[in-house]
């Protein structure tokens, strides 16, 4: 966990103008979290900021774990990190075929920080990549040997009224909770139509609380009693098809949260770089 990630951060929507229209390619993967340290001047008037831009054709996939972090032991021969990566590749193919641009936080066993070869990627780095993409949906992929079917979770944070000018890194998802809940409901309905067993709930799994996009944790469990059935290609394909199909309709429904106007007392936020670096949640 980086100190950067723990600092209170500014909302990342101060995107370059080019990102305000849906680009054909996502923003370049960053080497640090999207949100940058607080450095705000006092607002000249309490006008409501512009809406947060969303790239409706961009989906972020985060295959959890990787490298020395194997995740859970699914069976004698299967570990979680391999299952999540396989499902992510399958999803990427299906989403790309449907016109999406897919941003993945890792494409190999060991995740690495972009532009910083050899550096291990933290969970905050993954959130930074996702936040830079301004995606229509962010899916954190997990796998487990317990239970069966698909487990779907959104963040346990309570919904906030809107996205403030300065967003706490650890609760950045709060403004997106209504959208995440809506996506979870529609995804659950899609799984139900597909005949896949589903458990939908809330969970606190890092880095979902730091994501500034409609975000869900999708945990793949075995299809039956045999834990190795989680590797079944037909089963994974059914799950991926269901998710990809639902995201096609979701891209036209996603709405950014309202942005809250900066309070007049924001003059106190004349942060210096050292202030921002030393900020604690």
């Amino acid at each position, binding site marked *: 966990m980086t100190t950067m990630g723990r600092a209170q951060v500014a909302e990342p929507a101060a995107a370059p103008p080019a990102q305000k229209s849906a680009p054909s390619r996502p923003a370049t993967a960053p080497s640090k979290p999207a949100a940058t340290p607080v450095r705000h001047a006092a607002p000249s008037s309490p006008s409501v900021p512009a809406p947060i831009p969303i790239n409706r054709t961009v989906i972020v996939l985060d295959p959890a774990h990787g490298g020395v972090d194997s995740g*859970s032991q699914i069976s004698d021969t299967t570990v979680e990190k391999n299952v999540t990566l396989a499902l992510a590749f399958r999803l990427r193919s299906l989403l790309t075929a449907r016109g999406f641009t897919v941003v993945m936080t890792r494409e190999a066993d060991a995740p690495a920080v972009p532009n910083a070869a050899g550096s291990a990627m933290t969970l905050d780095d993954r959130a930074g990549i996702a936040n830079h993409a301004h995606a229509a949906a962010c899916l954190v992929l997990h796998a*487990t040997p*317990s239970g069966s079917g698909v487990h779907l979770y959104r963040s346990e944070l309570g919904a906030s009224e809107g996205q403030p000018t300065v967003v706490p890194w650890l609760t950045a998802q709060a403004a997106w909770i209504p959208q995440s809940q809506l996506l979870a409901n529609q995804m659950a309905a899609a799984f139900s139509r597909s005949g896949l067993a589903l458990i939908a709930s809330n969970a606190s799994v890092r880095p979902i609380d730091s994501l500034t996009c409609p975000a869900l944790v999708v*945990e793949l469990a075995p299809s039956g009693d045999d834990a190795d059935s989680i590797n079944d290609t037909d089963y994974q394909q059914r799950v991926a098809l269901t998710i990809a199909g639902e995201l096609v309709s979701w891209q036209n429904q996603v709405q950014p949260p309202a942005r809250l106007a900066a309070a007049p007392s924001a003059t106190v936020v004349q942060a210096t770089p050292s202030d921002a670096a030393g900020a604690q949640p």
Partner: protein
Amino acid sequence: MIQRHQRIVFWCLVVCIVGMGVLLAVERQRGRQRIAALADDDQTPLDAPTAMAETVTLDLANDGDGSIAPASRQIALPEDPNARARALIDHLIAEYALPGSAHALPPGAAVAEVFLVPLPLVGYTTDSTSSATKDGGFRATVPVAQSDPDPVQAKQPGGELAVIDLHSTFVNQHPSGVEVESLTLRSILGTLHANLPQIEQVRFLVDGQARETLAGHADLLRTYPAVDTTSSGSAASQGRSN
């Protein structure tokens, strides 16, 4: 004919045997007196139950459908709230270690200690005056130093933060997965909420240290609200938030 020196040796041995017998009897009596003295003192552990069994609610998790359902148990609990919270969690984890449990966890001690801290956290202490005692016997807090500008506030007077220090042996053997880890935490939160309503928030430590996750997934760094985590309670709270 027995010689004189042989008779002297014989009687010396007899005297030694009798002397040792007397010494043995005396030491035995002293040992009995020490044991009796220990038995007379109150040497029971602090968290041993001293009251009759009472009905408590355990929020039990089910891996099959991801649900949490309340279940009543008759359990003798200690009076001290800290020990009471620890005993509740120990009984909860013991239920999961039973054969056929719907949320199987490894047997053994899970909790090293539970600390109940009055809210708000910084620069406050409990007010021991009788006028500060609220309904239910909970005591209000008063500032004793320059207060934190943004402290964790209590929702009700007497609200407390429970800091649960888990054993690393339990955490290291805990099954890994979002669902199974979340159910364990929600089960603990719900059980504390149902039986110790003054607990408003919960934090977890492992062997006294902060740890990122329970078994690779569920966040252990955040502060959890102690709320009704049963399926019906969660649905109701979601309905309110939406």
